[in-house]
């Protein structure tokens, strides 16, 4: 299942539409890392609202993805982790490390905008 990636200004928004296989997660990672360069994007939002399962593979892929995006000079925010999914992740012992998360798409955009402003004002 292909994840549509929308370009909105300086940001890319990957909006997951259905359950993803491991292969789908790998292509999402590669697509995003490629497109960040193509569009010279400053931020990436991954909307996982529809995911009803985040297992150790999904979490590892999202962390790796976020690290790769950082190395490409952009920022990643994961938005929409559902309460039950968060519960299961904690039980399993999974964390998203240093990856930024936000409640929903709106909060994710606000986070990236605030970071961009801070960046322009000088210093991080």
């Amino acid at each position: 299942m292909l994840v549509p990636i929308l370009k909105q200004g300086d940001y890319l928004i990957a909006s997951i539409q259905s359950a993803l296989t491991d292969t789908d997660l790998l292509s999402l990672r590669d697509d995003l890392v490629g497109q960040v360069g193509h569009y010279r994007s400053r931020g990436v939002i991954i909307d996982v609202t529809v995911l009803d399962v985040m297992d150790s593979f999904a979490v590892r892929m999202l962390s790796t993805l976020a690290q790769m995006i950082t190395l490409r000079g952009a920022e990643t925010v994961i938005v929409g982790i559902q309460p039950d999914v968060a519960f299961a992740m904690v039980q399993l012992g999974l964390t998203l490390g240093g990856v930024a998360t936000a409640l929903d798409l709106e909060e994710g955009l606000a986070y990236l905008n605030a970071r961009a402003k801070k960046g322009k004002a000088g210093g991080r």
Partner: protein
Amino acid sequence: MGAERLIAIATDRDIVTAREEGRELASTLNFSPSDLTVIAVAISEVTRNILMYAGQGEVSLCLVDKGSRRGIAVVARDHGPGIENVALALEDGYSTSGGLGLGLPGARRLVDEFDIRSAPGNGTTVTLRKWER
């Protein structure tokens, strides 16, 4: 109690099928939404182990009861190389595949009963049970 659902595991698409069928089967009992998610994640972890270490195998899902308690049993079976050191494989962070090493120990934390049988050359069988609250 109830019919067994058997799902062959040979591709990563089968992992998704197995966890979706497991969630669906468990939802016929009185599990909370977070328990259903936990069951789906546990199935995801044990079926991925089949794929990663044995290449193929099967998972069986069935409803079980113990006295007045009802629950779901998940049995993940493969005829792969087996696990040399089961105790080590159940330790957080131990992995021979470059993963997070949270699959088996994580699945164990997610369920009420956990049993693993494995010997080098003789495949692996992981049995999980989760009971209604």
